[in-house]
């Protein structure tokens, strides 16, 4: 059975791993944000899969909905931070933001 729970979870896992790798490797701040979006989407895929294939039902969908909403909010704030960062550093390279190093 291809389109079962595990298939969905596999897709979610791939999205998640891609998002993490994206966060880890992209020096562009916007790229890091995109990685975050991917990670959240991976989680959402999992939620929807559980909604369909387990007794979680509607609750999982509501969780997914909240995740989407919060992701949107997070995107807005993160973008604002990115713009601020750009204003201050004239670049979007997150490697420049290392003033908190020990």
């Amino acid at each position, binding site marked *: 059975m*291809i*389109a079962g*729970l*595990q*298939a*969905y*979870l*596999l*897709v979610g*896992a*791939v*999205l998640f*791993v*891609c*998002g*993490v*790798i*994206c966060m*880890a*490797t*992209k020096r*562009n*701040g*916007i*790229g890091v*944000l995109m*990685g975050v*979006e*991917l990670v959240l*989407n991976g989680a*959402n895929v999992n939620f*929807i899969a559980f*909604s*369909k294939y387990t*007794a979680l*039902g*509607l*609750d999982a*969908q509501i969780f*997914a*909905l*909240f995740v*989407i*909403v*919060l*992701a*949107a*909010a*997070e995107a*807005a*704030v993160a*973008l*604002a*931070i990115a*713009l*601020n960062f750009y204003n*201050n550093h*004239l*670049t979007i*390279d997150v490697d420049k933001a290392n003033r908190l190093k020990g």
Partner: protein
Amino acid sequence: MNDSNLLGGQLLFAIFALATCLSAVAVVVSQTVVRMAFWLVISLGSTAALFFLADADFIGAAQLIIYVGGTLILLVFGVMLTASSPYLKIKSSPGETIIGGLLGLLFMFAVFSSLQGVEWPAPPTGDSAVTAGSPEGNTLRPLGLALLGARPDLDLHDGDTLSTGYLLPFEIVSVHLLVVLIGAAYLARAKRKSAAPAEGLES
């Protein structure tokens, strides 16, 4: 899902799952932000299609509207506002890329192995409780009721009399969004006068 549609559903799932995964990988691999954004659109859109396939019509729609139509546009704005030159490339060092890739593979393997190791419960038999009393995948009405605190999809007769709706989280999220709106506006606003001397000092 009945049997006649099973094959079509499987096929569609395969197509969209592949699209999702491949474009996610493409996001990772792409070097320019614009391309990454493009692949991200593909990936998120395909995810939305997967949602439709999983009988979560409203979530899929919300995914399309909010993510693809809103968040990504926002990201593209960010790209445009922060790009000092067209097709700006900020390359990572090869070592990092390799380590990242290796780590990704290892992570993937770990997740996959744990995924395999879990004994998943059998899916609920009969009609999905989610879509009870409504066409398949039409979860708009139960979702709305749940957000208002009512749960028509649950059988509450067996002593579970507590409300299991989401009115309070809904309100919290609403307020949260408002706060975020204000906060984002505050953060992003132009601070020329105070920013100029700060830059001078840093350089």
